[in-house]
């Protein structure tokens, strides 16, 4: 398996690939992933120019460990195949397919990516795929989409188009997104891929954004798409485990390691019943704490 499939992706920042001022150094804000956009942000008559801009940015700019995801144009457009050639040749880490409605859509992208890797003599399987789900049909097929390709690391909800399809709109309460969020995060967990929430576009309402992130964090999402670097720290803060959680997880991991050696299956930590089922979760908390720069221990 491509080791990057499971990397930390709390924040994925959208950037118009056609704007040199935006793509030259977004890494200074330290998002986990960058989403270089060839789709909606780029005007129809600038699709060609955006690719050159993207290609040279990918080749020349050191993004300092931020994952470089390229959002290609949809499969219904005449652009997506050249988008994939350009992004793969440039050395992107992943392709994001918009408007995904079926496993077949993902497979089309997978084939094009494989062909591009071959054409540009790149190791097969390096470039990952993520699928954005933007319709009721896509949400209902989340599970098959998650399982469509070995390259697929996750699915993302795109709330704007989805709510239109649902005959509603973004309300700020999250009510309109409830079903999709729940369905997608369950599908992702069931299939072992990651799940990302939609953007929050009201930059004047940072408190609303914070509440939105707290909600999706509790729902089990792995991260959120963001539209402005001001949103990064808030997401990272919410996704950073608390000191209490870290200490507890550390104890759980150590105790399970020890008790397993002693052949004991169930025991207590801080008065709580613990068994092997807690192990992965505790490990994940430690990994997240490490990535967030708050873990100083030796696990």
């Amino acid at each position: 398996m491509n080791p990057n499939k499971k990397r930390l992706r709390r924040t994925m920042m959208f950037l118009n690939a056609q704007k040199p001022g935006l793509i030259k150094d977004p890494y200074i804000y330290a998002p986990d992933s960058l989403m270089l956009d060839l789709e909606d942000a780029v005007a129809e008559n600038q699709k060609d120019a955006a690719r050159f801009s993207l290609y040279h940015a990918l080749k020349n700019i050191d993004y300092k460990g931020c994952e470089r995801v390229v959002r290609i144009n949809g499969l219904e457009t005449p652009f997506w195949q050249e988008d994939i050639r350009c992004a793969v040749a440039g050395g992107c880490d992943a392709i994001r397919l918009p408007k995904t409605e079926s496993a077949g859509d993902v497979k089309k992208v997978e084939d094009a990516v494989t062909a591009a890797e071959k054409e540009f003599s790149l190791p097969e399987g390096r470039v990952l795929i993520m699928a954005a789900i933007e319709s009721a049909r896509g949400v209902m097929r989340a599970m098959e989409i998650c399982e469509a390709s070995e390259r697929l690391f996750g699915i993302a909800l795109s709330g704007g188009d989805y709510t239109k399809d649902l005959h509603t709109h973004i309300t700020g309460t999250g009510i309109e997104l409830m079903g999709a969020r729940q369905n997608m995060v369950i599908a992702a967990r069931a299939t072992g891929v990651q799940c990302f929430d939609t953007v929050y576009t009201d930059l004047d309402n940072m408190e609303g954004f914070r509440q939105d992130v707290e909600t999706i964090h509790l729902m089990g999402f792995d991260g959120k798409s963001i539209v402005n670097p001001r949103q990064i720290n808030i997401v990272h803060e919410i996704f950073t485990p608390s000191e209490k959680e870290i200490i507890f997880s550390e104890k759980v991991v150590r105790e399970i390691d020890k008790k397993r050696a002693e052949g004991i299956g169930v025991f207590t930590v801080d008065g709580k019943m613990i068994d092997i089922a807690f192990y992965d979760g505790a490990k994940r908390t430690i990994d997240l704490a490490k990535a967030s720069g708050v873990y100083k221990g030796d696990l």
Partner: protein
Amino acid sequence: MINAVGREIPEDILEMTGKEVFHGNNYFDGHVFQKAGAYTKCVINSHGSKVIGSIHEALVKCGIKDGMTLGFHHHFRDGDYIVNMVMEEVHKMGIKDITICASSLGKAHDPLVEYIEDGTITNIQSSGVRGKIGEAISNGKLKGLAIMRSHGGRVRAIETGEVHLDISFIGAPTCDDYGNCRGIGGKSNCGVLSYSMVDGDYADHVVAITDCLVPFPNFPAHISMTKVDYVVVVDEIGDPEKIATGAAKPTTDMRKLMMADYCTQFVVNTPYFKDGFSYQTGVGGASIASTISLSKIMKERGIRMRFGIGGLTKPMCDLLINDQVDALLDTQDFDLAAVESVKDLRHFRISAGQYASPFNKGAVVNKLDFVILATLEVDVNFNCNVVVGSDGVITGAQGGHPDTAAGAKCTIVITPLLQGRTPAVCTEVTTVTTPGESIDVVITDYGIAINPIRQDLIECMKDVDLPFKTIEELRDIAYSIAGKPQKVQFGDRVVGIIEGRDGTIMDVVRQIKPFEFSE
């Protein structure tokens, strides 16, 4: 001769100006001199009014002639009408060879280029120039040398007699018929008249120009009638829209917010951040954002500021309103909130001399803990350039930069690492305006560098979680992104000097040369 910041100062310039090269910040500490004095024409009669009919009449009564030096202030900033009005009249009278000694000149004064070209104006002394005047000087159109001096440096030059003001013009938002001037009230409210106070004391002739004549006495006067010869009333002395703007909306630019946050974190981790500290900041987005975030931490930790100095803007005046500072010492107001704040009894007007002159018995900048400044360029020796643009053209002003930087215990410069493509942190600045010995910390969006001469600050930041780098590392990052910049091509002729605040020569500015491809 090479000066203390490593700049070669040509011998002929030293001879021509009679100046020394810069020897370091404290070279003149303890220096003794006799102050210059002003010619004074006594008014003993009781006829009651100093109001005369026109600027023309004032010029005639003051004995305007070729070769005189005229003083102006820049409290009206880009909204100033005074300099242009006076110079238009001087030009009409056919007077030549005038030296303009202004506290600063800006884009409002583009029309002066015509008078530079025809020899009406042959010398300019100012904190800086922008726009067309800068282009004219850098293209060699000014007959004499342009002298760029700091706010404190101007007061020093006048008080020592290095410059003698023949006539000074004081644009006064309100004035009475006997010459009591105030910076507040009227249509062109600018708050204070700090830069003109030295003109009142040292110019032979002082002319107040107002568009709002008020009944006597216009008290408390900012410039007293005892110093004013004539009062001229005109329709408009400035454009209020450009004098004091509405308070700038706090920035939402994450790059600036990030630098502001670094700055605040740095400040609060120094030993100077304690109850009773003092602080000055500029008007840039990052500086303002930093003041706002600092005020939050002050509140959380129960720390009060003893005094703030300005160049004031709303966030500083808010500290006064929220009772987080004991006093504001004011030399200039940048927005309407600051102008309004002048009425507060804890908001004190100070003269430019009190503020920043190195040649008096101690200026308030010497009592500063922190100053937060901007810069166009800063080099690996921490020298700053705030006057000459990346195209080699004079396009900025020293203002109080060298004065506050020298005075403050902790001088912080904030700049994005790249200004467009141009690296702000570089190997050698185009022109030195503020010596590196004055600069303690450089904060950029890519990291923070502490001047190695400040081992004490390096020590106290040891465990602080900020992206510290060496200044060379910052330069290297900038060059790795933008490429190594080539130096601006200058001609041989020196068109201006950058004067140190003590009157020594910090650097020279040469005429620009049109760019030519090298291959």
